[in-house]
């Protein structure tokens, strides 16, 4: 069984995002980058499924520049077997990401794909669903529990929706997207890092896969939202009630 896990390089969730003065992008100088947290959860799940089922090859893939090799090495250090970097200087939107990932899937023929439900930089929450559509496969988004059944030909999943937890089954291959409560990803160990250095990292390009990474989305400008100003401190519950009733008039 082969499991494909896409990883995206994103600014660490704890960094403060600063914009370039001309609004053309975010300031990347001095910014720490990490694997998108939801992708770490997806990879952790792939590792756990391998531990449960005995044998599986786990392939991590990312689309981006040379610098993304760093996140692939993190994936290898966590326990993935090999990595694919699809090199492009374009800034692919979710549809373009899905097209490139679809080409990788056609080449690799994984038993299933598991990836983050959303990248925490652009927050689009689209790529997995688009990938499933392009491959003509089923999808389960926002997975919080995963169990392979029927000799790894089906999966039983719980997913998190606005209305509560939904339980579904799906035929494999399929695309699954991970939600926060699926698991708690392991830390990378020192022996893991040493081993990762020897694991294969293949470089491809969208052209070599016969697809384009061109986007339909054109970002014209980035701005800071109008910030909220801190209001006032109240000293007592009485004062809080008075303000809410008579000043803000919301009670």
């Amino acid at each position, binding site marked *: 069984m082969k499991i494909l896990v896409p990883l995206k390089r994103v600014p660490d969730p704890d960094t403060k995002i600063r914009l370039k003065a001309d609004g053309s992008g975010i300031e990347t100088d001095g910014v720490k980058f990490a694997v998108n947290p939801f992708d770490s959860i997806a990879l952790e799940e792939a590792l756990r499924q391998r531990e449960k089922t005995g044998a599986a090859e786990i392939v991590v893939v990312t689309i981006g520049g040379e610098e993304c090799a760093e996140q692939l090495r993190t994936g290898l250090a966590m326990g993935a077997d090999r990595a694919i970097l699809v090199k492009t200087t374009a800034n692919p939107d979710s549809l373009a990401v899905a097209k490139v990932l679809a080409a990788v899937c056609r080449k690799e023929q994984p038993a299933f794909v598991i990836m983050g439900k959303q990248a925490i930089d652009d927050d689009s929450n689209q790529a997995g669903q688009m990938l499933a559509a392009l491959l003509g496969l089923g999808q389960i988004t926002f997975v919080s529990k995963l169990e392979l059944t029927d000799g790894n030909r089906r999966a039983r999943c719980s997913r998190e929706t606005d209305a509560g937890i939904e339980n579904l089954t799906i035929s494999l291959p399929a695309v699954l997207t991970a939600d926060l*409560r699926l698991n708690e990803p392991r830390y990378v160990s020192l022996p893991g890092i040493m081993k990762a250095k020897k694991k294969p990292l293949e470089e491809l390009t969208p052209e070599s896969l016969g697809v384009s990474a061109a986007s339909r989305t054109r970002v014209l400008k980035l701005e800071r939202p109008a910030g909220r100003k801190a209001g006032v401190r109240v000293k007592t519950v009485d004062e809080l009630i008075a303000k809410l009733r008579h000043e803000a008039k919301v009670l």
Partner: protein
Amino acid sequence: MNRILVIAEHDQGHLKLATFAAAGFAQKVCAAAGGTFDFLLLGSGLAAAAEGLRRSGAAAVLVADSTELTQPLADRCAQVIADTVRARAATLVVAATSTFSKDILPRAAALLDAGMLSDVIDVRREGDDLTFRRVMFAGNVIATVQLDGPIKCVAVRSAAFAAPAATEALSPVEAVAVDAAALPKFAEFISRETKVSARPDATEARIIVSGGRALKNAADFERLVGGLADQLGAAVGSSRALVDSGITPNSLQIGQTGKVVAPDLYFALGISGAIQHMAGMKDTKVIAAINKDPDAPIFEIADYGLVADVYEAVPELMQKLKT
């Protein structure tokens, strides 16, 4: 001319209010750049829901009614949406942001080879094109974007668009033929674990009372956060910390990766104010925060901040609000 398809969302036939915000977005596009919009309802047993969409200025209320669509499964719904877009030559597909639309709309977009924008908060006409504004980076960045291609898909934040004024005229209801046998059936629905709650949905409430890690267990949460909410007819919400520790269900999580809300009043009780939490509530009109740490970041965005222990302040608040 824009031909817009607004995907209506409902819960077992009960329309979600956010659907009307999506219609408000469609009206805004029509006013700026010309065009008309239709609603598309998917499910089964939809007569009442269809009726509820007839006074919002739509050219038509399209109804895809099939027992195969009783559960909102992405593979099936996306197929019906894509087929309808092609049949009607729609140029813009709109839904309000929710787990329902996040599941199905990107899939429909890919079937149509259309680009998609999530979390759209504004739209303008620019020459022959539309320019959108959307939120990224946990609410810290607003991007101005355009989409290329003959079909565009957008998910809009419901708080950013006003519902259309009710019309005298009734939109006609039209059935959309669903070829049930041809629908993809990769996924099969088993069950849904919903907590029946008499409280309003956080995305539709005027007031939200939200609790954080300060609440030590489910009973305390229910007594303090739930109690205050019930007294005010408010919805309840929570930080991720409480969802992770199993004190609250995931459907209550407010934030970057939970629900995004913008009520008139948001009580943050024992919530520190992590950027991921604030991403889900900082467009609220009035924020009231109670936290025992005077340096908690929540105070930087709260209109009214009270430094106090929630275990003392909230019972006092409940007591005094009775008078």
